[in-house]
C-alpha cells in the first residue's frame, strides 16, 4: 500500500517537474555570477541531450558536435555584433580592410532570421554529411574520425577567414538583444529562464521521441543495424534524421551559450571541446535522457570548481575523473544508481517488488 502511494506522489513526472521548477526558481537563490554559470551549464546540457539521442540511442558517436554548437553560436553572435555596431562595420572587418558588410552577414541584421539560421544551418550541414555518410554505410569509428576531420575543416576556415568571422578572437563585445542590454542582470536572468524552458522542452520532446516506437527503432539500429535492415527499416534514413536533429539542438544550445557568455571563438568549437561534449554524455550516462543533463552540469561544475580551487593542477583531477568514470562506471552516473538500486532491491525481497517487476 505504502509503495503505491509513494509511487503516486513521487512519480517520475512529478519529480522532473519539481527539478524543472527548482531550476526556474534558481535566480532567487544564486548570485548573478553563479546563475550565469548555471545557465551556461544548462545550455551545454541541451546540447548533451541532442548528442545522446545520436550516441546513446542510435549508437553513432560524433566527435564533431562542436561545429554545430559553434554554427548556432556564431549565427547569434553575428546578429549581436551587428546590433552592437548599430549596423556599422564590426571592428575586425575594418582592420581586415573591408569597406562594406559582406553578403553573408546581411541576413543576420534581423534577429528572427539569425535565430532560424542558427538552427537551420547546423541541421543542413549535418543532413548533407549524414545523408552521404550513412548511405555509404560509414559507421562506427570511421564516422567518428570523419566527424573530426569536419571539425578541423570548419575550425581552420573560421580561424583563417578573419575578415568574416573575427578569426581566432571570435566575436565578442555585444550590447543589446532585441533592444535589451545583454549585460544587465535582468536580461541575464531572462536568458537563464529561457534556457531552462528550452531545456525543459527539448527534454520533454526527446522523451516523447524515444519512449515511442521510433525510439525502439533507434535502439534497434544501435544494437543490430543489419538486423534492422533485414527487417525492412532503413537505418541510414533514421540515422540521418537523428544526426540532423541533434545538430539542430546543438545549434540551439550554441545560441543560448552566446547570449549568456557573451563570446564565441574557435577555441569553443574545436576538437577538444567536441571531445569534452561526448564526455559529458558518457559521464552522465548514455542511453538515458537525464544522464547527459547531469553529466553536462556536473563535468562543467567540476571543471569550474577544480580550476578555481587548484588552478595549477586541476587538469590532473579532470583527467582522473574521466578515466575513473569510464572504467568503473561504464553506464555513467545514472548507471551507478541503477546498480545500487538493483542491489538494494535484491536484499529487500518482498512481494511488492515482484509486482513492480512485472510492470517494468
Amino acid at each position, binding site marked *: 500500500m505504502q*509503495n503505491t502511494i*509513494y*509511487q503516486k506522489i*513521487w*512519480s*517520475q513526472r512529478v*519529480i*522532473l517537474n519539481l*527539478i524543472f521548477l*527548482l*531550476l526556474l526558481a*534558481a535566480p532567487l*537563490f*544564486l*548570485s*548573478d*555570477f*553563479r546563475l550565469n554559470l548555471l545557465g551556461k551549464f544548462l545550455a551545454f546540457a541541451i546540447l548533451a541531450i541532442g548528442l545522446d539521442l545520436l550516441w546513446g540511442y542510435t549508437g553513432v558517436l560524433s566527435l564533431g558536435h562542436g561545429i554545430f554548437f559553434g554554427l548556432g553560436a556564431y549565427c547569434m553572435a553575428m546578429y549581436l555584433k551587428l546590433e552592437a555596431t548599430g549596423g*556599422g562595420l564590426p*571592428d*575586425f572587418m*575594418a*582592420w*581586415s*580592410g573591408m*569597406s562594406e558588410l559582406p553578403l553573408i552577414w546581411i541576413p543576420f541584421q534581423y534577429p528572427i532570421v539569425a535565430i532560424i539560421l542558427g538552427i537551420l544551418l547546423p541541421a543542413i550541414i549535418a543532413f548533407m554529411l549524414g545523408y552521404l555518410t550513412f548511405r555509404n554505410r560509414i559507421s562506427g569509428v570511421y564516422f567518428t574520425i570523419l566527424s573530426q576531420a569536419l571539425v578541423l575543416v570548419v575550425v581552420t576556415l573560421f*580561424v*583563417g577567414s*578573419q575578415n568574416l568571422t573575427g*578569426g*581566432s*578572437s*571570435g566575436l*565578442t*563585445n*555585444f550590447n543589446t538583444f532585441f533592444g535589451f542590454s545583454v*549585460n544587465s542582470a535582468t536580461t541575464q536572468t531572462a536568458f537563464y529562464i529561457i534556457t531552462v524552458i528550452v531545456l525543459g522542452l527539448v527534454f520533454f520532446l526527446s522523451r516523447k521521441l524515444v519512449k515511442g516506437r521510433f525510439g525502439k527503432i533507434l535502439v534497434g539500429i544501435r544494437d543490430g543495424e543489419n538486423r534492422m535492415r533485414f527487417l525492412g527499416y532503413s537505418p541510414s534514413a533514421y540515422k540521418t534524421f537523428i544526426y540532423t536533429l541533434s545538430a539542430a539542438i546543438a545549434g540551439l544550445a550554441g545560441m543560448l551559450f552566446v547570449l549568456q*557568455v*557573451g*563570446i*564565441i*571563438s574557435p*577555441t*569553443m568549437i574545436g576538437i577538444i571541446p567536441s571531445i569534452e561534449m561526448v564526455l559529458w554524455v558518457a559521464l552522465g550516462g548514455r542511453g538515458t535522457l*537525464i544522464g547527459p543533463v*547531469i553529466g553536462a552540469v556536473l563535468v562543467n561544475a567540476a571543471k*569550474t570548481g577544480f*580550476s*578555481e580551487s587548484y*588552478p*595549477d593542477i*586541476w*587538469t590532473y583531477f579532470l583527467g582522473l575523473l574521466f578515466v575513473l568514470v569510464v572504467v568503473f562506471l561504464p553506464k555513467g552516473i*545514472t548507471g551507478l*544508481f*541503477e546498480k545500487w*538500486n*538493483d542491489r*538494494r532491491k535484491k536484499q529487500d525481497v518482498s512481494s511488492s517488488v515482484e509486482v*513492480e517487476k512485472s510492470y517494468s
Partner: protein
Amino acid sequence: MRKRNFFYLLILGLLAIFMVACSAADNAANATDPEEAAATEESDSNEESEEDTIKVGILHSLSGTMAISETSVQQAELLAIEEINEDGGVLGKQLEPVIEDGASDWPTFAEKANKLLQQDEVATIFGGWTSASRKAMLPVVEEHNGLLFYPVQYEGMEASPNIFYTGAAPNQQIVPAVDWLLENRGDSFFLLGSDYVFPRTANAAIRAQLDNEGAELVGEEYTPLGHTDYNTVIAKIKNENPDVIFNTLNGDSNVAFFKQLKDAGITSDDITVLSVSVAEEEIKGIGADVIEGHLTSWNYYQTTDTPENEEFVANYQEEYGEDAVTADPIEAGYFGVYLWAQAVEEAGTTDVDEVREAAKGISYEAPNGTVTIDGDNQHVYKTVRIGEVQSDGMISELWQTEEPVKPDPYLDEYDWASDLSESLAE
C-alpha cells in the same frame, strides 16, 4: 519504476542542496543578502571592508597550448606582489593574489574575469597574453568597471578605459623595426605570420608602411596556429629571395620554422628574420644555435643595462632557478604590478575610477628604463630596442631609441596609416 523514482528524487535533493550551498557561499562572501549586495555593488567593497588585505586577480593560461608562454608572466607578477608585500604592501595592506587558469580558451577567460570581479571583488586583474584573451575580457571589465593590466605587445587599435596596456603598441615595436630594417638590411620584405588577429593586423600596417617607403613586398604567408611543417613556406621564401623576413609567428610554430629554416641552409647571413614574438624564453625552446644572428624587436632584454634590471634578473632567478630567463612580456607583467600599486598609493584607494585618474602620467623606474602611463590611451611610454640573438640564447642590443616612445595604438601620427585607423575613429 520505483528505483528510477528514487534516483530522480536523489537528483532533486542534490540540486536543492547545491543551490542552497551556493547561495549560502555567496552570502558568506558578501556578508550581506543578495539584494543588499546588489545595492552596494556600485561602490567598491574593498574600500569599505575591514579586511587587511587587498585582493588582486591573476588570470593567465596555466594549461593548454598558451601555458608555454603565460606561466612565466604569472610568475613575474607573483614575484612583484611578493616584493611589494615585503615592503609593507599597498596602502598598508598586504596584496592577496587570487590565481585563476584561463586554460587557453577565450570564453574561459571571460568566465574567470567575471568570477574575479563579481565573486572575489578583486581590485584589479593582471592577465592575458593573446589578443583574443584580451578581447574576451574587455567587455567583462568594462561592464563591471574593473581594471585589467595586459602585459603583451599587441596589434593596437584599442584603448579601453578599463585596461592598462603595459606591452608595446605597434609604434613601439613594429613601426620602428621596419624603419630600422629598411635602413640597415634591405628593402625587399617577406611577411610571415600565424593566421590570427595580431599578424594580420600588424601586417596590414606594415604593408602600408612599406608602400609609403617605396619598399618591395615580395610575399605574405599565414600558417594555421600550431602549424608544424614549414618546408613549403620555406620553398616559397627561397623562390622570392627577400632581404628580410618579418616574422609574426606565434608560439610553437617559431620553433618549427627556425629549425627548418636552418636545415634548408638559410642562415642569418642570407636572409635576416626579424621576430616580434620571439623573446629569451622562446629562444630556449628554439635552440640558440638555430636562431643565432637573427633579430628581434622588443622594449626589454635580459641584457638591458639598467640597475633596476640587474636587481630584477637576480630576484627572478633566485625565485625561479638559475636557468630561468626574463623577457619582455615577463618584465611588462612585473612592472605592471608596480604601476598599479603606485597608482593606488597615489589615489589612496583601490576604487577603479580614482585609480584610473591617479594613474595618468605616473612614472616608474622599470627594468627597461623609465615607463610612464599615457593618460590618453592608458598605454605606456617605452624605449624601443632592436636586438640580435647570441649563441648563448641572450639578445644583445643593436639599436635603441634615445628616449621612451609615446604610445600610439591607432597609429594616428603616421599619414600612411590613415586608412587603417580612420574606419575606427568613429
